[in-house]
């Protein structure tokens, strides 16, 4: 384990202290619980949006709390869900009188806890809460049958759900509308990733799996979950082609569509390589007659020091485009 840390038991606490120090003008915590992370900027009548999930994915999840995006985030320990009580405390803090939307990734632990928190918010405070799950990882399972719950994991594509829902809330739409828009974004985003190396949970101290020097794993999850194919490392163009094929076929995205594209680094992969992938994505989209409405490139959802990238496509229409374009100002992500 090669990390710049102190006692692994203090990893979360010290990381959060650093974040609150650096960004004290914009964010704070509820009831002195560092794991209850909220924006300082409230707007009466605005729908509150909260997220939550395990740490180890910065800037996901807390990095999207700020103007034009989210209001709060329950922060779990590395790769672990925060607790229902923490989610509930945040819900009370960010309710600005118009109800609260939960947007989080499709993981058991998070679902169980957000469900408990929803019950608490209903019973104890009469706050209306709705939920939209991020379940964008094409590699993690087949598409779900109509009416069935998706078994797909949520990965980087949740960024687009935050982006659209956050802009809708900032425009003072009501809870029903913000929820509908979030669900629409979730329904129209697909992601696929590739991993080149493992990552180490600080308290575990060693990698939970390994990838050989000449290998890659297509479709690996952001906690190291098994992907769809382990094989010889290929060229950037080949890897991009394989991932794009799976993504494009899934929704499917077709000629004439417009998409917002997120090229996301998993942690150790230089930006250089992410742009080499971007170049190939653009060539593939052009060939298919799909228009790239906007590109986001960089680290948006990481897996500690894992190396690799993921690609997310969001199909946009006239309702989503202005929401994608809406300005954002969080300590970790800004758009003008």
């Amino acid at each position, binding site marked *: 384990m090669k990390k710049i840390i102190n006692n692994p038991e203090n990893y979360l606490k010290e990381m959060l202290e650093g974040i609150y120090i650096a960004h004290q003008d914009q964010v704070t915590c509820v009831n002195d619980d560092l794991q209850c992370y909220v924006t300082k900027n409230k707007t009466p009548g605005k729908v509150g949006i909260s997220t939550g999930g395990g740490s180890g994915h910065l800037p996901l999840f807390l990095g999207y709390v700020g103007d034009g995006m989210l209001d709060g985030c329950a922060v*779990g320990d590395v*790769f*672990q*869900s*925060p*607790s*229902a*009580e*923490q989610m509930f405390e945040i819900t009370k803090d960010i309710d600005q009188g118009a109800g609260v939307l939960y947007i989080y990734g499709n*993981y*058991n*632990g998070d679902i*169980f*806890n957000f*469900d*408990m928190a929803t019950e608490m918010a209903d019973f104890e405070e009469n706050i209306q809460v709705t939920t939209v799950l991020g379940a964008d990882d094409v590699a*993690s*399972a087949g598409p779900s049958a109509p009416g069935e719950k998706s*078994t797909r*994991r949520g990965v980087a594509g949740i960024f687009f759900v935050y982006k659209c829902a956050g802009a809708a809330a900032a425009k003072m739409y009501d809870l029903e509308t913000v929820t509908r828009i979030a669900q629409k974004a979730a329904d129209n985003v697909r992601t696929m990733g590739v991993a080149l190396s493992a990552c180490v*949970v600080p*308290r*575990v101290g060693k990698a*939970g*799996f390994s990838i050989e020097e000449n290998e890659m794993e297509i479709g690996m*999850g952001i*906690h*190291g*979950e*098994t992907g769809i194919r382990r094989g010889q490392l290929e060229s950037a163009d080949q890897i991009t082609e394989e991932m794009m094929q799976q993504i494009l076929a899934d929704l499917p995205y077709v000629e004439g569509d417009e998409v917002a594209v997120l090229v996301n680094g998993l942690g150790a992969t230089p930006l250089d390589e992410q742009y080499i992938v971007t170049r190939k994505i653009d060539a593939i989209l052009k060939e298919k007659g799909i228009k790239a409405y906007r590109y986001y490139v960089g680290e948006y959802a990481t897996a500690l020091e894992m190396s690799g990238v993921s690609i997310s496509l969001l199909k946009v229409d006239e309702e989503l485009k202005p929401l994608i374009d809406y300005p954002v100002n969080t300590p970790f992500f800004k758009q003008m």
Partner: protein
Amino acid sequence: MLQDMKRYLEVVANIMQENKDTLIEMDQIVGDGDLGLTMSDGFRAAYLAVKDTDEQDLGKLVYAGGKAMASAVPSTMGTLMASGLMQAGKDLRNQNELTNENWVQFFDSFEAGVINRGKANVGEKTFIDGIDPAVQVLKENIELPLAQLASKASKAARQGYEQTATMIAKHGRAATRGEASRDLLDPGAYVAVLLFEAFEISVKG
């Protein structure tokens, strides 16, 4: 004697601690490897929450352990185990002795709490496949001396656990492996085995 429940939770905390690395390794094969940490931290938190209390209501005592566990380790299995303890606590309200009936109620309610939160059925390769056969045995043999009852239940949990190597996972991270998950033993079901081993040890005296 409520002391018996405190002692049981202490033995559980210790056995999870001893099996921490085993659970980590098992979970690393199908999931993210956190299970050893969450089970040892979580049951430790449950025990510490009840250890020095003067609470005389068995139900409130168990419920408090569950709430402490929920806050300490809000992972999948952490929340499920907490939900189990909390349900058992609700159903044991106003009891203050550990009769055979109350022990059976404890595990029966524990299972119900987990099912209510996690919505898994028997045969879907989860914790339920470890606890369910043991609860059946408890119910059918409620008249046996406690030590014998515990040992019978413990054997049933282990058999149930071993059966998970023939099932396809339908829940959690393991589910994404589909058919490939079949030959693997389920780590959550192994937690059920440990809960009943601890039961055996703690009632042996």
